[in-house]
């Protein structure tokens, strides 16, 4: 294994467009590839891939592998896995990144299992650094640090794959920032013959019906988020948060504990296993602030924490802390907003 092996990003492609999460990973991948002094590669599978390279080159992609076959769209597990497994045996990437989406989390484990390479899910940060094995004392240079909250968000763990390649990681949409590297960047296009990488026998699962329902909840792009935690106490109390979000023109979000308790639907979950948000204003009601939640909202411009517990961990990152019952405080916020606006 040469340390000049490249970094590859599996790009999701739907409706003529490379998915945002893939472009975010290309942005991160560019930085990591430069640090390592290797090429950034993109892999796109699907149908009607003409011109897709032009969507990814501006992110600093050096090589685009295209595997076109109309049966590769929509995504199914075995055929996409087969392409990655066979291609990776040939080109031996040192790192492979993919979105922690329904696709990436279906595909990644299958590929890593076959190649016996380590895979870390839902990373919140990726870095390059050295590692010394505490048992053998063996030293490694330039490993991928796969950093993620673990154990329900109670700790943050740095994971490494010292001996197995590729080092694989998934990252959720919105965790990394998408940024153009160079509008005029040009790389090489490599068209691969699908038949060489996937066999007819791989197409075992038949998609009978597929209807896309665009998510109704759009907390990712909302400038104002009113989020509730377990401390909100009930589904009924969440109605207060909807009232506040409505008057402020924002959306309601939630911590994992509130979702697990059934107060609110999963689409509203903010944090490592939910959505990452960067609103202008984040009002946290009855949220204690586990790492896994804070990971998904710490870049909010202004944070207000409303909590019974003056020592709630989230208070340390809040700009304003109101110690009290959210049932008392939220109606006051609504009342004085109505009074003072306009």
């Amino acid at each position, binding site marked *: 294994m040469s340390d000049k092996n490249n970094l590859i990003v599996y790009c999701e492609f739907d409706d003529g467009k490379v998915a945002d999460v893939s472009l975010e990973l290309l942005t991160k991948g560019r930085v990591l590839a430069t640090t390592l002094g290797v090429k950034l590669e993109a892999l796109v599978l699907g149908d009607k891939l003409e011109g897709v390279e032009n969507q990814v080159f501006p992110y600093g992609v050096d090589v685009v592998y295209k595997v076109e076959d109309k049966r590769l769209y*929509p995504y199914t*597990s*075995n055929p996409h896995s087969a392409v990655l497994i066979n291609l990776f045996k040939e080109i031996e990437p040192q790192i492979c990144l993919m979105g922690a*989406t*329904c696709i990436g*989390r*279906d595909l990644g*484990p*299958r590929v*890593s*299992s076959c190649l016996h*390479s*380590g*895979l*870390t*899910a*839902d990373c919140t940060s990726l870095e390059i650094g050295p*590692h010394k094995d505490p048992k053998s004392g063996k030293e490694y240079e330039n490993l991928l640090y796969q950093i993620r909250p*673990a*154990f*329900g968000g*109670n700790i943050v*763990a*740095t*994971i*490494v*794959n*010292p*001996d*197995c390649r590729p080092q694989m990681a998934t990252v959720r949409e919105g965790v990394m920032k998408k940024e153009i590297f160079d509008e005029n960047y040009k790389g090489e296009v490599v068209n691969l013959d699908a038949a060489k990488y996937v066999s007819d026998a791989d197409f*075992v*699962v*038949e*998609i*009978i*019906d*597929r209807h*896309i*329902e665009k*998510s109704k909840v759009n907390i990712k792009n909302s400038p104002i988020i009113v989020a509730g935690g377990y401390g909100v106490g009930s589904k009924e109390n969440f109605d207060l948060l909807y009232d506040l979000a409505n008057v402020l023109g924002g959306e309601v979000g939630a911590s994992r504990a509130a979702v*697990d308790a059934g107060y609110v639907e*999963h689409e509203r979950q903010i944090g490592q296993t939910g959505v990452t948000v960067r609103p*202008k204003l984040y009002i946290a009601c009855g949220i204690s602030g586990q790492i896994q939640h804070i990971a998904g909202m*710490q870049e909010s411009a202004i*944070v207000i924490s409303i909590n019974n517990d003056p020592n709630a*961990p989230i208070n*340390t*990152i*809040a*700009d*304003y*802390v109101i*110690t009290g*019952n959210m049932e*008392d*405080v939220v109606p006051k916020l609504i009342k*004085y*907003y109505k009074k*003072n*606006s306009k």
Partner: protein
Amino acid sequence: MSLNIIVLAKQVPDTRNVGKDAMKEDGTINRAALPAIFNPEDLNALEQALRLKDANPGSTITLLTMGLPRAAEIIREAMYRGADTGVVLTDRALGGADTLATSYSLAQAVKKFGNFDIILGGRQAIDGDTAQVGPQIAEKLGLPQVTYAEEILDLKEGFVTVKRRLEAGVETVKCPLPCVVTVNGSAADCRPRNAKLIQKYKYAVSPSEKEKLSDELKAVVEARPYLNLQEWSAAYVEADPEQIGLAGSPTKVKSIENVVFTAKETRSLENNDEQIEELIKELIANHTIG
């Protein structure tokens, strides 16, 4: 048509109630120090299995779990709800496994069962949230997989039809059997315990639990084969020592941190009308809210 159904389940630490002794020095989890529960999405998977059993009388549901010997608790829990029996794959050599070593070990155990029609499991466990073990087991057994399942719509003529819940919609797929299906938390909740089944199975025990019973109860268990759960070791499932436990795990925990967030300059407000009105005025003045 009777089915042989395997349900993969995990006894997990209740990550919402984590104490100080939760982590060992080597960065792995000290499971013994934590309250243990039936992983929530594995209960959703169990419900789908129970529905298949309802529709196909004579089917058997076997719970397979890897963990400490006390994981037999979740097998009983599953039997109270309608599962038939279970196996705990337990061995010190399996400790410290990452998802790949775990899926290898479980796949070896599945091979011991011989024939089966379908393997069901939760999408992911709340202690790791990786969702990797299901697909990895499928790959190791050379089976197709259906992840993010919300409902099994139909199972007949060697195929299962499954509704999947994805980020932006739903997909219905038809997959040949045998296969691995992982079930989402959005699927139907698991039915409650059944009083008759509690009576029937309350003395269902694993061999190590049986040791601790009184002679009288031991005799009761021995007289009823259905009260005997199984415990399998790594050697019993013919697991390669190089591929299990910490040694068989390509991912290593380099470090564990309790992250301290950079504290901001925080203003504490009283929960009274004056201070809250002042806050609202300030947010309006600086155009944070309109």
